[in-house]
C-alpha cells in the first residue's frame, strides 16, 4: 500500500493506494501516530484504496478517536465495496464520510 501525505499548515491529507489489511495497517498506524500532532483538519483520501479489513478499521477508529480530541477527520472518495464494509460494521456512523 502506498501512503501519500500532504501537509498544509494544520491540515493533513493522506491518500491511500492499494489494500489496507493486516499487513499494511501498521504502516498507516505509524504514519498517524507520528503525524497527527498539531493537525486540526485530517483528510483520508481513499480514491485508490480497494480493500479494507478489520485491521484497517482498527487504525481508522484509532485515528478518529485522536482527531475527536483535536480537530476533525474526513474520509473521501470511498468505493462502494468499502462503503458496505463501513455500513456493516457501523463505521459509517463513526466516521465522517464524504
Amino acid at each position, binding site marked *: 500500500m502506498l501512503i501519500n501525505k500532504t501537509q498544509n499548515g494544520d491540515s493533513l491529507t493522506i491518500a491511500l493506494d492499494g489494500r489496507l*489489511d*493486516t*499487513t499494511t495497517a501498521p504502516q498507516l498506524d505509524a504514519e498517524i501516530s507520528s503525524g497527527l500532532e498539531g493537525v486540526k483538519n485530517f483528510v483520508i483520501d481513499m480514491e485508490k484504496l*480497494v*480493500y*479494507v*479489513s*478489520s*485491521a484497517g*478499521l*482498527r487504525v481508522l*477508529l484509532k485515528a*478518529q*478517536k485522536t482527531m*475527536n480530541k483535536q480537530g476533525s477527520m474526513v474520509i473521501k472518495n470511498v468505493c*462502494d*465495496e468499502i462503503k*458496505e*464494509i463501513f455500513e*456493516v*460494521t*457501523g463505521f459509517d*456512523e*463513526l466516521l465522517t464520510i464524504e
Partner: protein
Amino acid sequence: MEKREKTRRPIRSKVQNMVFVISIAALIITSAVGIIGMIRIQNDSEGALISQMEQNLRNITTNKADLADSELGLYSSYVGNLAAYISGLYQNPSGYISHDVPTPKKEDKGKLVIQRTLRDKSVLLKNLEEEIYLLGNVEPVWHNLITSGKGLITVIYLGTEKGLLISYDDRPDLSAEDGNDVYYDYSKSAWYKKVKETGRVCFTDLYMDVYQRGLMITCAAPFYDADNNFAGAVGMDILISDLYKDIIEVDLGEDKGSYAFLVDNNGNIINNDNDSSKQKTLHEEQGMSEFVASEILAGKTGVSLAKGKTHYEYTPTENANFLGGRLGTVEDNIYFAYTPIESTGWKFCVRIPENVILAPVRSVQRNVIFTIFSFLAAFLIIIVIVAVASRKFSKKLTDPIIALTHDVKEISGGNFDYRAKIQDNDEIGDLAKSFNYMALSLKDYIRDLAAVTAEKERIGAELNVATQIQADMLPRIFPPFPDRNEFEIYATMNPAKEVGGDFYDFFLINHNHLGLVMADVSGKGVPAALFMVIAKTLIKTRALMGGTPAEILHDVNNQLCEGNEAELFVTVWLGILEISTGNVISANAGHEYPAIKRADGKFELLKTKHSPAVATMEGMKFREAEFTLNRGDILYIYTDGVAEATNSAEELYGTDRMIDALNKKADAPINEILAEVKKDVDDFTGDAPQFDDITMLGLRYYGQEVNKMVETKKLDIAAEIKNLDAVLAFVDEQLEKYGCTPKVQMQIDVAVEEIFVNIANYAYNPEIGSAGICVEVQEDPLVVSITFTDNGVPYDPLKKPDPDVTLSAEERQIGGLGIYMVKKSMDDISYNYKDGKNILTIKKSL
C-alpha cells in the same frame, strides 16, 4: 345460535294476553254497537219529535183561529142584523112610530138608556128631528141585544152622515151636560171611517176600555137610506178579554218562552195590559226573524223556524249523575206557528223555543252520554277484573308446568331417584308420569352402561398397548440412516381405529440396496393388525435374503397362504432401489399406483402393471416393473386410505386431489410434503370419521455425493501473518475462473484474512504451527466452501458475542470486529472440533 336472542315469552303471559285481548275486543264491539244504536235512536226521535210538534202547532193555530172566527163572526152577524134593521127603517119610515132620543142625563147613570150626541155645533137639531125619531126605533132591538149579551156588549151606537150619533148604554152621566145637546165628532173615529171606506162589516183593533173593564173591540157595519146611499154606520163595543184569554191560552207546557199571541193589523202584538210601554211590534218579539215576520204579516198559515244566535250555556242535568250537568252549545232557535183570523185580519201566533221541543231529545242525549260514561266505567272495571282473572287462570295453568320443570331439572341434574310430584289427571300429569318413567329407564340404562363402559375401557387400554406395539414395529426415527445422504426418506401412518391393517417399511438390504414396502391388509382392527405383523415380518425377512421383488412376494405369498383360515389378504407395493444408480425394481400386488415427481416436473401417477394381492392364492407369480430415479426425483407411495378418504357428502378424495396436494409443496422436505397431503385430506373429509388407515411414504433421491463437487484444492501453510498474501493469492486463484463480482471477491478476501489472521495470532501462540486451507467449489448452484483447519488450542470464534456497532468511537472495543464481518458477509459459517483439530468452514454463493 341466532345472533339476536328472541325475547322469552312464557306461556303464562301468552294465555294472559290472549284472554285479555279477546275480552277487550268483545267489550269494544258490544259497546260500539250499543252506542251507535243509541245515537241513531236519538237522531230518529229528534226528527219525529219535530214533525209531531209541527203537526200539533198547525192544529192548535187553526183551531184557535177557527174559535176566534166563530166567536167574532157571531158579533159581526149581530152588527150585520142591526145594520139591516136600520136600513129597513130608512126604506120604510112610515112603518114605524116616532121614537125620541133624548140627550144624555146624569140621573140615568146605571140605567140602560138611549141618548143622542151631535157631531158638532154645525149640525142643527131641527134638521135631524126626522132622523132622530126614525132611528129611535132601534132601542128595543138594542136593549134585547145588550141584555142578552152576557155583559160583553157594553154599548151599541150608530152614527149618520147627517151628524147624528145615537148610543145605548148605562153611563149617560159621563157625557151629560145638564140636558143640553153634547157633541162628539165620531166621523173621525176608526170604526166609522173604516166602515164608510169598506162598506162592509168591520172590526176595529183592540183597545183598552176607558172604564178599565178590559180589552175592547168595536164591530161596525154600514146602513143605507132609501136611495141605497151610505147613510151611516152602526157599531157595538164588545169586551173580549175572555175571548182573548180563550184564544191565547194554549197549553204549551211550563216553559216561559212558550206562549201564544195575537198580532193586529198594524203589526202590533195585542197585549192584555194597560201599560203602553209594554206594547211591542211583531218585529220586536224575541227570537223573531225577518222572514217569519213577513210570512206572518202576509197572512200565511204555517210553522217556521227562526234561527237564533248560538251561545254556551251550562245546563244542570235533571238526572243526578256524577257530572252534575253539562256545558254545551245552545241555539236560540224558535219555532213560530201562525195563521190569520179571517174576521179581524189578526194573526194568531204560537212561539215555542226549539229547546223546549227537543227537551225530550236532549234528555235522551244526556242519557246517551251518561250511558257512554257508564260503559267506559264498566269497561275499566271489566278490564281490571279480566286482568286479574286471566292472571289467576294462567297462573293456575302454568304453575304445574313450573313445578314439573323444577322436578325435571332435579332429574336431569343426575338425581334419578327423584320423582316428579305432579298428580294432576291431565296432560301435565301424563308428562310427569312420562318423566318419572324416563328417570327409571335412565337409571337402569346408566347402570348397564357403566358395566359396558368398564369392559370397553379394559379392552381400550389393551388396544392402546397393541397400537403402541404396532407403531413400534414401523421405523419411526427420521432420518433413519443419518450417514446416507443419497436419499431423503419420510413415512407416516394414521390408523383409523386403535390398531390398523396398513404398514410401511424400509430397510437397507445391503450397502447399495434399499427396500421400500407399502402394504394394506384386508379388513381392520385386531385381526388385520395381527396379519400385518406376520406379513411385515415375512416380507422384510425374505427381502433381506436377496432376490427380486417378484421372487420375494412369491415366497411371502406361499407362506401367508398356509393356514390362512381367516381368508385375509394383503396388497403390497414392494420396491428395491439401487442407491448408486437410482434404478428401482418394483412389484405391485394389488396396490395403489405410486406417484413420481421428476426433478424438473410435477407429481404424476406411475402406472405399472398389477398383480393380484398377496395371500389370495398359493403359487402365484408376480410381475415386476423397472424405473429409474434421477437426482431430485421423488417417489411417493401410499395406501387406499388416502385416495378413498370420504367426506360427509360421500365424495371420494381421489388421486387427482392427492396429486394436487403433493405438488403444493413439492420442493419442501419430504416430511412437509406428507404433512401437506394429510392436512389436505383432513380438510376434505372435515367432520366425517376416518374410515381407513392413512399411510404414506416419500423418498427423494439425490444419488451419490461425489458428483456434487466440482473442484477441491488444498493449501497447507505456516500460520504466520506474513503468509497472508500467499493465502489470499491461493484462494483468489481458485475463484478466478468463476468471475466473482468485486464485492463478493472482497467479502471472501476479508473473511479469509480475518480467519487466517486469527489462527496466526492465537492458535499456536507463541509457537508457529501449520494451517490448512481447503477451497471447494460446488456447482448448481455455484457455492464456494473454504475450510480452515489447525491443530492449535480449541477455540470456537462463533461463540464470541457480536460487538455493538451502534456505539460511538470512544465506546467501541477494538476486538471481535473481524469475525463479525465474516458472519455478516458469508452465507454460512460453521465450527467443529474433531480429532484435535479446529475446523471452521465458510460458504458463499458465487
